[in-house]
């Protein structure tokens, strides 16, 4: 147990080890090196097991149907080709679903952020009597299950003439996004120094000016995080779209993938290629904007 660290007890070595960098660890005798190797193997195996579902689907989608049936999904295929992706794209009419999902995304996210940051500003920076009650009522929306609003929403959309159309999603999406967006924007505004806001007020600036010209420029990182998180939620939303949309030509991508399931019941390679095309934008976004995503999630949780 005791190698170079003299009389130090074992737990102290471990604690010290975690605080040091990997290169230092390697300089410390064979026992340590062995442990580092074992830890690395465990981590790599763990990551492979965790990512296995994604790896399996990619391998499935990359081989022709006959190869899959002959050799089974657990064998390494001999043939690879991208034909399933092209077939899923055209046969599944994925272009339509992509277009619909993108349309609702580019309209919903900016409107949601502007409306939410307007509301978040007084909740963070103006004192008024109903501040906490308003905040509580809005944030409690985080716990309202979407399913309970579906039937009334469907009726409303029929009444106001949006029945079945893609734009029926806009207002419910805005409403259900509001609690989280206000939570994040309020947290961001709360970090803007109050002296700055007070100074602007003394100079006679209007609240609108303070919101737009003083506060907004200081919370742009939060806006970026929020835009990404909100974009992900909008892209992935399922149950409201399932209820309010009518007809395949209006469907968003999650519904389109379900249509694929009905269409390619037995052609698993093509179906899984469609599944990959459905999750691919999120994986790419994740690779590009990982920091914003994880920081955004964490900033919503920490009390400001």
């Amino acid at each position: 147990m005791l190698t170079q660290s003299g009389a130090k007890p074992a737990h102290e070595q471990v604690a010290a080890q975690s605080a040091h960098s990997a290169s230092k660890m390697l300089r410390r005798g064979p026992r340590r090196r062995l442990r580092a190797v074992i830890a690395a193997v465990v981590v790599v195996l763990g990551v492979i097991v965790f990512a296995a579902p994604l790896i399996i689907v990619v391998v499935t989608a990359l081989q022709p149907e006959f190869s899959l049936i002959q050799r089974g999904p657990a064998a390494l295929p001999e043939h690879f080709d991208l034909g399933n992706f092209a077939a899923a794209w055209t046969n599944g009419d994925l272009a339509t679903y992509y277009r619909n999902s993108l349309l609702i995304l580019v309209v919903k996210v900016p409107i949601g952020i502007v409306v939410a940051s307007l509301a978040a500003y007084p909740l963070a920076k103006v004192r008024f009597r109903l501040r906490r009650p308003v905040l509580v009522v809005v944030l409690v929306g985080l716990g309202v299950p979407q399913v309970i609003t579906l039937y009334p929403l469907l009726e409303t959309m029929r009444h106001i003439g949006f029945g079945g159309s893609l734009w029926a999603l806009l207002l419910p999406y805005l409403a259900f996004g509001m609690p989280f967006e206000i939570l994040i924007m309020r947290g961001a505004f709360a970090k803007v120094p109050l002296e700055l806001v007070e100074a602007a007020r003394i100079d006679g600036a209007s609240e609108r000016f303070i919101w737009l010209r003083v506060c907004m420029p200081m919370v742009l990182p939060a806006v970026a995080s929020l835009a990404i998180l909100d974009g992900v939620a909008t892209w992935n939303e399922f149950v409201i779209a399932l209820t309010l949309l009518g007809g395949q030509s209006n469907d968003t991508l999650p519904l389109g993938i379900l249509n694929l399931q009905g269409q390619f019941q037995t052609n698993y390679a093509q179906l899984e290629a469609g599944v990959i095309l459905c999750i691919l934008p999120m994986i790419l976004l994740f690779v590009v904007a990982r920091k914003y995503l994880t920081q955004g999630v964490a900033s919503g949780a920490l009390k400001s």
Partner: protein
Amino acid sequence: MRPAPVERDLRLIGNAGPPTRGLARRGWSVLEHLLARGLVPYYFLAPALLIYFAFLVVPMFTSLWYSLTNWSGVGPMHFVGAANYREIFSDPGSLLALRNTGIWALVMVTVPTAVGLLLANFLRGRGWWKGPVLAILYLPAVLPMIGVALLWGWIYNPQFGFINSLLSEMGLGGLTVDWLGSRTSAIPALLVAGIWVSVGFPVVLYTAGLQTIAPELYEAARVDGAGRWSLFRHITIPGLRQMHVVIISLEIIGALQTFAIIYALTAGGPGNSTQVLGFWMYQNIFSFHRVGYGSAIGWLLAIMGLAVAIPYVLWMTRGDD
């Protein structure tokens, strides 16, 4: 409250606004000031509150009203009081859905939270590989649930799925199961997929929380001879108290809203064995045309959600005003 400087200047010029008549004029300007200043927060809040009330709060309470009727979606609507709620507790389908929703919430609040805490603790500190590992753990959480469901449906496929193929190839063909099609294995199989999606969230939050614990605390305890477990038990766990509340609340709320994976993979079957309240409500309203009864099931779910969300939000906004 004095009139605004601009107004005073105009009065000096003497050709704008009503003539000043002492107190009366001053009273008006106080009112104007209150209106102008006091209503400003509400101007800012108005668009958000309008959308929120019209498309979340109003539909929510409309469905509360429906839950007290026997409405089918068309035709006459009769008030039936709490009859729908009483029916929930004598209807085996609803009781099964309630039980499964409870199981789902219980598993989601324990397994991802505990595993997430251990992983976050393991991924602590420096190391080039820690960022990517954290990212891979969080990746499933940003994927569309329908895509995730179909992905796992393929792995669980009885004939061509990865698990059964692997078992057959290893000569364990006798162990193959129709994972999603048998009453005993369907719920555990769905839970595995659910855990896969939800484990990343606690890892990310606990990782952020660990950065707020002062390293000096550990130093001091180590000097006092505290062991590894002792450090974890007495410094790490209490230091993450805020995060525990956030994670547990949000995991419960998320678990209560389980819908897409059930819809895509089992539709509540076989024989209602994987039924959850969200999907059971949807089926009652849209397949069985029981808008009243379905709304009552939905409100049972909403009450459970609000029972978590209201204390959570009050705790989060504590000390605000």
